């Protein structure tokens, strides 16, 4: 099991919690340590409680755990909110000169640092969080110099004076603790390595994947937690010849993405919660007009406005079934942050090869978590682009009927028709959300209707045969206990295996990144004594699918508190379920 340290800074929204946390995470990453971050936050701009948490180790970390070792508390509430995670060996950094009286349980180590005064000494009270970072460095035996590069990156744009002041603030914090406290008994000592990591969150990975995959048009409307994809692309995609549009609503966003795709650009939109409801209107048009489009849903707690800043995997049924009529589509669900990159690339290829909407379903937990990876995890040379049956001016003539008209919805063996982009001579055609014939002309003729429905679903059959819809596997492949999950729970499950192993519980974990089409797990389920399906929703939407596929019953672990699964918690739940009865 990873020897880890769990650190957090918490205060009110508006206290600069996020940027402070990120500076520390970057410093750890640059020091060759693995990092896995999480956030406690609410949908408000000021006040309340917000925290940025970092789990770090020299080994790979891919989950949060129920333990907090070092806490920088800017408010009493930060301490209260985390009492369950704090323990006897925890150290809490706070500013005793501030108006609030810190109530810290006696068994914990209270580290009173005059954050504000020291920040003022360094040049301004605004740097108090940086003083706290310096203090944290001293407690954890982490060289304060590692903060320097992160501070340069964060404040470089504001001039060298600001950067130097911040460096000074960090040192004042570090020296204050060194001079006033002897905390060696806590035993924290952060080792460093020569590894050269990159640090990014799931939404950044999706944005980077989109650019790498040749996405050149993005339209979106701000919504938590999807907005950071749009923010990532804006100011970057232009360097690659692309453009980002902020639309007036989600109806417009998806239709704009569709318009960009019709004109020939690889296009994407991303949203969450209520936004995906509005976009549902257009799913059918994308599918029947056979336009390639990537629709990203970064799930959050629903229904309605739900809990906008909380985790949930509640949109699976929407992605599978959303929209009236029968809408052929693919549903891809990346299981980790690096996979957010690769599945985005794959989504663009699937969309264009099969001229079908592709739902890329991520979630809030991945969108806010920064994680370290070796740069090779994002090897751009491995990115392949397949534009499918896009025809240019030389190929267009192969697809004309005897009267010279382009067959945009030609009924082919694999179901995939040629695609001509407006501006191509001889390619002119109609396309419509009405049922249509091969030429795209509307029709209600029974035979043509059946031909076109069959053709569109034949694309899915072709994809099922030609593409690899593989699951990811961890733990012991021969174990009698099988745990199945989709989406972002993978990391917590992998770490849960370590806890289970300590209790001599042998488990095979299958993590599924494709919901439609999906791998057939009947044999794997048949071979296991116990099958447990883990997902962050109340009703077990994936469990329902698997029960249907394998004609059996499974055990379920569902969590819908709004908080992601933690490795230690999952291990306990799995152990409990293994001794429980299978539901009737």
């Amino acid at each position, binding site marked *: 099991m990873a020897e880890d340290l769990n650190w957090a800074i918490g205060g009110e929204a508006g206290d600069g919690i996020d940027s402070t946390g990120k500076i520390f995470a970057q410093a750890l990453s640059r020091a060759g340590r693995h990092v896995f971050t999480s956030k406690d936050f609410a949908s408000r701009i000021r006040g309340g409680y917000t925290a940025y948490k970092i789990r770090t180790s020299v080994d790979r970390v891919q989950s949060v755990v129920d333990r907090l070792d070092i806490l920088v508390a800017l408010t009493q509430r930060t301490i209260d909110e985390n009492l369950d995670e704090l323990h006897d060996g925890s150290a809490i950094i706070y500013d005793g000169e501030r108006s609030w009286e810190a109530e810290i349980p006696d068994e914990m180590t209270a580290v009173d640092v005059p954050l504000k005064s020291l920040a003022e000494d360094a040049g301004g009270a605004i740097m108090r969080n940086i003083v706290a970072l310096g203090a944290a460095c001293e407690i954890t035996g982490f060289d304060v110099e590692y903060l320097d590069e992160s501070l340069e990156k964060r404040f470089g744009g504001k001039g060298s004076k600001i950067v130097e002041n911040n460096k000074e603030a960090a040192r004042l914090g570090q020296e204050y603790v060194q001079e006033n406290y002897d905390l060696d008994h806590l035993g924290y000592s952060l080792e460093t390595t020569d590894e050269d990591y990159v640090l990014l969150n799931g939404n950044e990975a999706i944005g*980077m994947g989109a650019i790498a995959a040749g996405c050149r048009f993005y339209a979106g409307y701000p919504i938590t937690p999807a907005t950071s994809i749009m923010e990532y692309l804006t100011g970057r995609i232009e360097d690659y010849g692309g453009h980002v549009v902020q639309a007036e609503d989600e*109806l*417009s966003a998806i239709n704009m993405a569709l318009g960009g795709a019709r004109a020939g650009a690889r296009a994407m939109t991303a949203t969450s919660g209520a936004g995906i409801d509005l976009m549902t209107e257009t799913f059918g*048009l994308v599918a029947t007009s056979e336009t390639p489009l990537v629709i990203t849903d970064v799930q959050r707690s629903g229904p309605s406005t739900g809990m906008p800043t909380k985790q949930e995997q509640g949109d699976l049924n929407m992605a599978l079934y959303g929209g009236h009529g029968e809408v052929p589509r693919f549903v891809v669900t990346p299981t980790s942050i690096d996979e957010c990159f690769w599945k985005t690339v794959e989504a663009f290829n699937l969309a264009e090869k099969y001229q079908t909407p592709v739902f890329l379903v991520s979630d809030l937990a991945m969108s806010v978590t920064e994680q370290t990876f070796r740069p090779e995890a994002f090897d751009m040379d491995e990115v392949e682009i397949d534009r499918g049956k896009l025809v240019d001016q030389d190929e267009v003539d192969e697809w004309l009927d005897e009267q010279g008209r382009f067959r945009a919805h030609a009924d082919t063996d694999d179901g995939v028709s040629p695609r001509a982009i407006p501006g191509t001579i001889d390619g002119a055609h109609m396309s419509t959300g009405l049922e249509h014939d091969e030429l795209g002309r509307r029709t209600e003729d029974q035979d043509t209707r059946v031909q076109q429905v069959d053709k569109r679903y034949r694309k899915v059959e072709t994809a099922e045969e030609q593409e690899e819809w593989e699951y990811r596997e961890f733990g012991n492949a021969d174990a009698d206990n099988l745990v199945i999950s989709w989406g972002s729970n993978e990391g917590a499950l992998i770490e849960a295996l370590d806890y289970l192993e300590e209790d001599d519980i042998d488990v095979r974990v299958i993590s599924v990144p494709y919901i439609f089409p999906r791998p057939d797990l009947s044999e794997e389920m048949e071979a296991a004594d116990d099958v447990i399906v883990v997902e962050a929703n109340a009703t077990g939407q994936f469990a329902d699918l698997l029960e249907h596929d394998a004609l059996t019953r499974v055990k379920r672990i569902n969590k819908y508190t709004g908080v992601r699964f933690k490795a230690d918690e999952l291990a306990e739940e799995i152990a409990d379920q293994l001794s429980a009865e299978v539901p009737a």
Partner: protein
Amino acid sequence: MSAFNAIGEEREIDRDEFTPGVEPQPTWCPGCGDFGVLKSLKQALPELGKNPEEVLTVTGIGCSGKLNSYLDTYGFHTIHGRSLPVARAAKLANPELEVIAAGGDGDGYGIGGNHWIHSARENHDITYIVFNNEIFGLTKGQTSPTSPKGHKSKTQPSGSAKTPLRPLSTSLNAGASYIARTAAVNPNQAKEIIKEAIEHDGFAHVDFLTQCPTWNKDARQYVPYIDIQESDDYEHDVNDRAEAAEIMRETEDVLNEGTVLTGRYYVDDERPSYSQEKHAVGEMPDQPLAERYFDDDAEWERSYDLLERHK
């Protein structure tokens, strides 16, 4: 030189090229004003030297939505109220295309009203033709956003309690840079206005009065009509926003009293389009987004640099 061979192709264009081989005859009712829009487009496009294959016609839902079934261009028939987002994005992705959006008054002023207002506000460089017949035609005669107050229908049997929407004034307030009204019964004016709208660099909104002889029998055939540019009774400077606002308001007020005013209402040639604004701040690349990698041999640009920023 575009990567798309129909764009900028120099040749004589015949208006028959815009008549599709399949279904050359529209299924609109005899006497329908929609014929007038089709005819004016078929005249205007070849006169402007437009190749049918460099034109994308995007329609909404309603009788008007069938426009591109009868006009042989690249056609995309979308869903109710959503033609504008599709059209303006296609134009952004490939500015060399001629993009025309069209729909009815229910489609554009009702369910798609938000897109209309924002397309005007952002001044997207497209032409928007609204087939305004003051009724829902395809669903058989229900009250629409432009139906007159007191208009009786199956859904408003006691007469509409709502004041009709003001298409011209709303468009002006929203920011459209070319606003005109024409009528199917005035084909010469219609053709010229359509040509101007297509040529205009910015959001060109044409409110096209299209009589519905089947479901809106109360409505006049929009005759007699008055061309405000031709008539001695009216005089205004089309570049003057205040004067335009005044005559628009009058035009909207008198329509339901039987006076049909048409013509050019507002033209702002100075206002940059959305694309020009974005280009000026470096957010819109020089080369069309759609063209950049159309060629199979194009070197795909990968995000190597982006990864560096995460170190």
